[in-house]
């Protein structure tokens, strides 16, 4: 290749290097300027969208033009000189060889030979590499800077560790300069620790009720107005401008207005919960015979912010009927100084309360928190009741779950005896006489035992020795004959006795006599109490409680005696009627007993047919005022949400503002909707796809879409 051709080839390489270097430097410059301009535009809000890149492109173009200028100076002589500088061996032969004036010189061939022996390819390559290396690195670095600039998180979310304050910032879409660098300082109430949180570019703030919020921004603030819930807030000039307010108990929006635009910040109050208190001791209600000693009390308390104090409270109720007296007091008071958890312990001296039978003590633990804004919040535990039983009273104040009284047990047993007797009577035709007698007498013995229990109840209520009659079991040795006057019972009793004696062993006769004498004594006692004979007694409504409760039992007692006799003779069929009479009498006694013990009058059944419309006066017609719809704003909220979703596909920024407004307004009336919108807003602000979340919010607002998978013959979804 001739020298000129070689120089031209080198010239082409250099030109390529110049062009490449210029392009790389221009690219790097464009990317770097673009990244810086993007950051600056978002911070200042002065530039938007296309503008930063236009500026970067212009600057990059300028750089490209400037760096391409050397290309024009790439003449053949200059290139030759450039080669000569790097390859001294040429000794300027190349410059001479490419000179057009020396083209036909006689030394041309010699020069070409000399030049042909020298190669400058390596130098050229080195020069080209050096020319493009740094620009290439710069381009890569600029690209990285651009990625970094675009990934800077402008949406920041900060939350205090105790959750008293949280805030959401938003990328400053606002073009209005007064609000571009708006920030908020949130100070929790003093009782909650007074923590301070600073939030840049807030979109919503969640804070305790009573927290103070101060918004500030640089600039003079001229023309800036602010209001919350329709009330104007003062804009105070400081080093910039400032607006201060206190978080109320309702969610609201703070609106900042300026000629160039508007900014809204949502304020969501978080209420201070009341303390929770759990009473550990006593663990359940108690009934005592005698109120002596000390009752151990313990409780545990908890509050979300901090407890102030706790104590046990008691109320002592004395009296009965219509007359009651009350005493109350506290004990075990304790101060907590803001601790979140606490315990209470005390001892209730029962002697000091001077409790009498029938008195009741209501006990509970109470705790207060330190809320000095809207409280203090007071929490209370479950109440325990301590009752002192009245004399002779064994029932419980609990209506359900009390053990059945003795009469109940008697009823159950008598019913069982009836069933056994009926079963035996059915089998009677198939049984041998001895078997029948054996089983019948066994039932008879049970009947006798039951009669003894009933007798005990009667004696106990009459105030006598409960073992008056049945000091012994029927199977025991017969008692000595009692020659005391036997009650002259009814003729059937005499007949019964005669029948009993007929054909009986002496031992049995003696036992029967003993039973008779005891029975007679019991009947005499009953008669003395009731003033009546010893016939089967009837219950009458206006009798005293003593009579009311004992008459049926005495009747039962009589009937059981009769039944025992028949069973002893194997006469199961004849035993059943008195057994059933006994059962009925026990049931009546049970009702009478309940009425007496609980002090209630008998249930009055109103004779409706008799009294219907017999009133002398008549009522007057009246008018009714309609009820208000449950949630009149629900339909409007659904419409607004649908409109905001539609707007999101066209103008996301405007849609976000609409959703923020809707969310704050829904916090009270529709908290589920507010929460669903909050999720969607979070996604939209962070550049994520919010389609699914918006659809979910819409389902919450609209309710379930009522649908039928067919077209029915009747309109409406069925």
């Amino acid at each position, binding site marked *: 290749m001739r020298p000129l*051709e070689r120089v*031209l080839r080198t*010239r*082409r390489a250099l*030109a*390529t290097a110049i062009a490449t270097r210029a392009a790389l430097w221009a690219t790097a410059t464009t990317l770097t300027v673009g990244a810086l301009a993007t950051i600056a535009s978002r911070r200042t809000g002065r530039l938007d969208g296309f503008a930063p890149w236009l500026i970067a492109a212009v600057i990059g173009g300028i750089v490209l033009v400037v760096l391409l200028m050397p290309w024009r100076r790439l003449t053949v002589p200059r290139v030759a000189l450039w080669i000569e500088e790097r390859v001294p061996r040429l000794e300027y032969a190349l410059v001479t060889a490419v000179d057009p004036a020396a083209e036909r010189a006689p030394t041309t061939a010699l020069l070409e030979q000399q030049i042909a022996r020298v190669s400058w390819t390596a130098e050229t390559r080195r020069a080209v590499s050096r020319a493009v290396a740094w620009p290439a690195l710069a381009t890569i670095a600029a690209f990285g800077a651009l990625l970094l600039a675009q990934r800077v998180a402008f949406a920041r979310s900060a939350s205090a560790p105790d959750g008293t304050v949280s805030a959401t910032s938003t990328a400053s879409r606002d073009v209005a300069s007064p609000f571009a660098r708006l920030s908020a300082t949130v100070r929790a109430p003093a009782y909650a620790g007074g923590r301070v949180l600073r939030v840049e570019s807030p979109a919503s703030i969640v804070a305790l009720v009573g927290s103070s919020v101060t918004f500030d921004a640089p600039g003079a603030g001229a023309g800036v107005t602010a209001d919350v819930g329709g009330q104007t807030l003062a804009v105070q000039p400081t080093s910039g401008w400032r607006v201060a307010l206190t978080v109320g108990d309702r969610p609201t929006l703070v609106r900042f207005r300026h000629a160039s635009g508007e900014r809204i910040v949502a304020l969501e109050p978080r209420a201070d919960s009341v303390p929770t208190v759990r009473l550990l001791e006593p663990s359940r209600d108690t009934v005592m015979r005698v109120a002596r000693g000390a009752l151990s009390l313990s409780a545990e308390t908890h509050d979300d912010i901090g407890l102030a104090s706790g104590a046990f409270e008691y109320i002592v109720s004395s009296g009965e009927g219509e007359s009651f007296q009350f005493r109350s007091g506290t004990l075990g008071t304790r101060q907590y100084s803001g601790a979140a958890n606490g315990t209470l312990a005390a001892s209730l001296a029962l002697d000091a309360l001077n409790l009498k039978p029938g008195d009741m003590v209501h006990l509970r633990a109470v705790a207060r928190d330190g809320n000095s804004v809207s409280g203090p919040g007071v929490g209370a535990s479950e109440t325990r009741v301590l009752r002192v039983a009245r004399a002779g009273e064994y029932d419980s104040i609990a209506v359900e779950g009390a053990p059945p009284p003795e009469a109940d047990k008697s009823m159950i047993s008598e019913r069982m005896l009836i069933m056994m007797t009926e079963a035996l009577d059915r089998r009677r035709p198939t049984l041998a006489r001895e078997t029948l007698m054996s089983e019948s007498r066994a039932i008879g013995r049970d009947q006798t035992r039951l009669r003894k229990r009933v007798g005990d109840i009667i004696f106990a209520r009459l105030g006598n020795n409960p073992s008056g009659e049945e000091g012994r079991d029927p199977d025991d040795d017969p008692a000595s004959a009692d020659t005391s006057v036997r009650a002259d019972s009814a003729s059937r009793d005499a007949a019964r006795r005669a029948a009993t004696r007929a054909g009986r062993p002496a031992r049995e006769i003696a036992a029967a006599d003993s039973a008779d004498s005891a029975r007679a004594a019991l009947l005499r006692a009953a008669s003395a109490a009731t003033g009546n004979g010893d016939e089967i007694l009837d219950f009458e409504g206006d009798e005293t409680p003593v009579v009311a409760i004992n008459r049926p039992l005495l009747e039962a007692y009589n009937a059981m005696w009769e039944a025992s006799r028949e069973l002893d003779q194997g006469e199961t069929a004849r035993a059943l009627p008195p057994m059933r009479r006994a059962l009925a009498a026990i049931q009546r006694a049970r009702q009478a007993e309940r009425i007496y013990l609980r002090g209630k009058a008998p249930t009055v059944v109103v004779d409706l047919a008799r009294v219907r*419309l017999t009133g002398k006066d*008549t*009522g*007057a*017609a*009246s*008018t*009714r*005022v*309609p*009820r*208000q*719809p*449950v949630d*009149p704003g*629900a*339909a409007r909220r*659904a*419409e607004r*949400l*649908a*409109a905001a*979703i*539609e707007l999101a596909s066209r103008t996301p920024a405007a849609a976000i503002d609409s959703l923020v407004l809707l969310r704050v307004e829904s916090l009270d009336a529709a908290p589920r909707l507010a929460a669903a919108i909050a999720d969607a807003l979070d996604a939209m602000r962070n550049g994520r796809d919010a*389609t699914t979340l*918006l*659809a979910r919010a*819409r389902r919450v*607002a*609209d*309710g379930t*879409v*009522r*649908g*039928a*998978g*067919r*077209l*029915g*013959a*009747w*309109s*409406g*979804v*069925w």
Partner: protein
Amino acid sequence: MPSPAERVRRVAELVLRATALAALAVLLWRALRPPTAAGVSVAAGDLTRALERWTLAGPAELRVVLDKAPDARTRDWIRALAHSGSQAQWAASRPIRGSAVIAEPASEPSGATRVRFAAAGGEPVSIGDAAGTIDTLSRGGAAELELASVAGSVRASGATFTAATAARDSIALKPLLVLGAAGWESKFTIAALEERGWRVAARVRVAPNVEVTQGPLGAIDTGRYSAVIALDSTAASSATAIARYAHDGGGVILAGASARIGGLSSIAPGDVGRRIAGVAGGVTSASPRTGLGVFPVTSLVSNGVALESRASTVTVAARRVTAGRVVQTGYDETWRWRMAGGDEAAAAHREWWSRLAAAVAYAPLVARVPAADEVIDETPLASLIDALGPPATMDTRVAPASDGTRTTRFLFLLAVGALLLEWASRRLRGAR
């Protein structure tokens, strides 16, 4: 003397120059050539461009191959071209399903929209509006939806159609008249309706000649009430007026055993059967009305429609009576559902009573002008046939029409690229 490489290079430059010139010439020719006057078969994919060309060119015959029902704008455009002298024919490259959708306001104060949809075939259909998808029918078919809110038009989209509609009417609802004796059923029924936004007039009897009244009370006619609800036998004194009201177009709800009232039994959908007790604990179950006692609707009249049933007994039935509608609900003491049901029982009780009222309410439609952005194309296939006639028999296997835009772009880029490459090559070898 140029080297062989240089010669090759110069030839390449020549070729590039020629290529650029050729591309430019083709572009010029395409721009200047007259539009074809022959009939053109076009697939649906690029109808818009074709329509633009045909509008300018006015071909004698248009053949359109569609893979889905076109929208109203496209359809009207083709029809306009057909009416301007071109003979238009269309065919479908795949079966286009017939579909229909309509929206009308539900007769409830909440302003809900009732959407009815039907489509032939079994392809999935998505129903939504401008704010997104509302529901999806996996196998198409028919459906009726009640939507609490609608943004823009309601669209039902399948693979071969998109039907769109908007509610073009609103309704004028009047108060409901409730007749009953004072009691929990009248109290909670009135409460449920009012809490759902209904205006309620009421006559509640407490004693002979003593009533608790509310609202406008006057003659029972359609100018005053949208529906009359008879809760018990106290409606007997108004039975004749209620029956006449139903025949005149009013809505009547006969609750419990009130259908037994003489004068109302003639308009009732059926007879009143013997009361059946509810299932113990049923009000807290997933089907709370199973826990209510019911007077079953028996001997349904010929035009009676059973709306609800429990096992084999009809519990709610409806019928039309001349111009009016009557619903008979046999449920007894529905208030127990509200009081003793689950957490959502009160809302469900309200909704159920509101639906009953909406099913019969006399609610004349008031026409409204649809908004400019509301698209209405309720029966795409039927409208297409109506505009262009039935599909023609023709070969639907056509290549996609060349979109001149793409060719133009290609030629332009080819020309520019060739020129640039030629220039760069010349400059790099030092030539000017």
